[in-house]
């Protein structure tokens, strides 16, 4: 099996995702143009600025191509800005460009401005007992999910990590830590998808 995982590389922390995936033995393809989607097995949408990414996605149709791909149940994982891109609804930013794939409502910059950014140990039962060091930077949270969305982690009563089918979304940035458990979890989703 080809081992390419695509990382949307328009803007943001795509290098850090690449380093973690390389460490796990996966090759990475940086996705900037529609043709880059051709031979990838899954896609990561990194942290960055969701409005900036949205503008760049509309430039050459890349955004619509990714939506088409997602229609085939394709595995996609979004972190922070990536989570916003995946959400169906964004509070106060309803006209912002997004993929709108997951049945959830998100709040942008939900914890405040940069001075309110934080890191914390997060309990994620699906990953085992050891807490996950979660880094929240001007982070969104998930205000509301539909019943078909699985909740993987909550922080202070708000959903911050969720899964719907082969779509995965986190408010925080595992790529800024050395903990590879979430990336391994996403790789299992990819491998199961391609075994079918």
């Amino acid at each position, binding site marked *: 099996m080809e081992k390419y995982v695509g990382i949307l590389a328009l803007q*943001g*922390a795509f290098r*850090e995702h690449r380093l973690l995936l390389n460490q796990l033995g996966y090759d990475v393809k940086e996705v900037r143009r529609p043709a880059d989607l051709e031979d990838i097995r899954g896609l990561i949408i990194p942290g960055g600025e969701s409005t900036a990414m949205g503008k760049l996605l509309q430039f050459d149709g890349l955004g619509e191509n990714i939506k088409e791909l997602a229609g085939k149940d394709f595995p996609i994982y979004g972190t922070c800005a990536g989570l916003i891109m995946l959400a169906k609804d964004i509070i106060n930013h309803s006209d912002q460009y997004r993929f709108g794939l997951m049945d959830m409502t998100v709040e942008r910059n939900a914890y405040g401005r940069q001075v309110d*950014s934080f890191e*914390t140990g997060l309990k994620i039962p699906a990953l085992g007992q050891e807490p996950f060091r979660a880094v929240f930077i001007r982070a969104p949270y998930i205000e509301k999910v539909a019943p078909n969305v699985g909740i993987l982690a909550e922080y202070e009563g708000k959903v911050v990590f969720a899964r719907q089918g082969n779509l995965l979304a986190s408010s925080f940035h595992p790529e800024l830590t050395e903990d590879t458990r979430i990336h391994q979890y996403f790789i299992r989703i990819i491998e199961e998808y391609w075994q079918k």
Partner: protein
Amino acid sequence: MMAEIASWKVKTGLAEMLKGGVIMDVTTPEQAVIAEEAGACAVMALERVPSDIRAAGGVARMADLSIVTRIMETVSIPVMAKARIGHFVEARVLEAAGVDYIDESEVLTPADDLYHIDKRDFKVPFVCGARNLGEALRRIGEGAAMIRTKGEPGTGNVVEAVRHMRTVVNEIRQLTVLPKEELMTAAKNMGAPYDLVCYVAEHGKLPVVNFAAGGIATPADAALMMQLGVDGIFVGSGVFKSENPAKRAKAIVLATTHYQDAQLLVEISKDLGEAMSGLEISSIAAADRMQERGW
């Protein structure tokens, strides 16, 4: 679990999220909207852009807070603001106002001719300018979570930014081949903290994100700096001193993302209108060169 705010990871992390993006100088909420619409990843809220500061002369200070807060209310992307070198009270005021990043900037008139701000002491992260590796590591040693080239602000002339980036890259490369016993002398010679010199020698890169700033005026300038290895772009006067700011801003954003795609650069560089008028560096008296500010 206790939440930890203002950690080094959180401070440097925001800069990581800005990578591959363009941070634009803006002086009004209207300009901030144009920048956000063009795809800027952040804005720098100012009272005047650098070329106007240069033209006005006199003492340049932190912007009026009403400008900064109105811009913060208008856009959803991060808002940065500049404090004078060494002026830790201007920095405290900007922190209390809630800006997302402070630029301790040579564009403003320095408030201290010997010392920079102790940036570790703040919750808000800082970006600082550097012309060479020693200067970059001194700023990081003081707590800067992001570095940018100084270039020569307000000139629309990219030559100084190129020089500063090439200098930093060359000096990093040289450190990586030095035997361990030579690193202390290297640290002494460049006036940089020893532990940071060791980090650079081992990793072959700065421990924080490094952007280009100072003189970027065209999409090709932005792509040039990206190809030289910077992580992203600051555009000061280059957007709003040009004939068609909205179009030029968008083109510079696209060029920063697709910096290796010359064919695409052809498309996005067409019909942009006049760029800002530029200044030849040799025509600026040594005392008026902003890059000499900082110690």
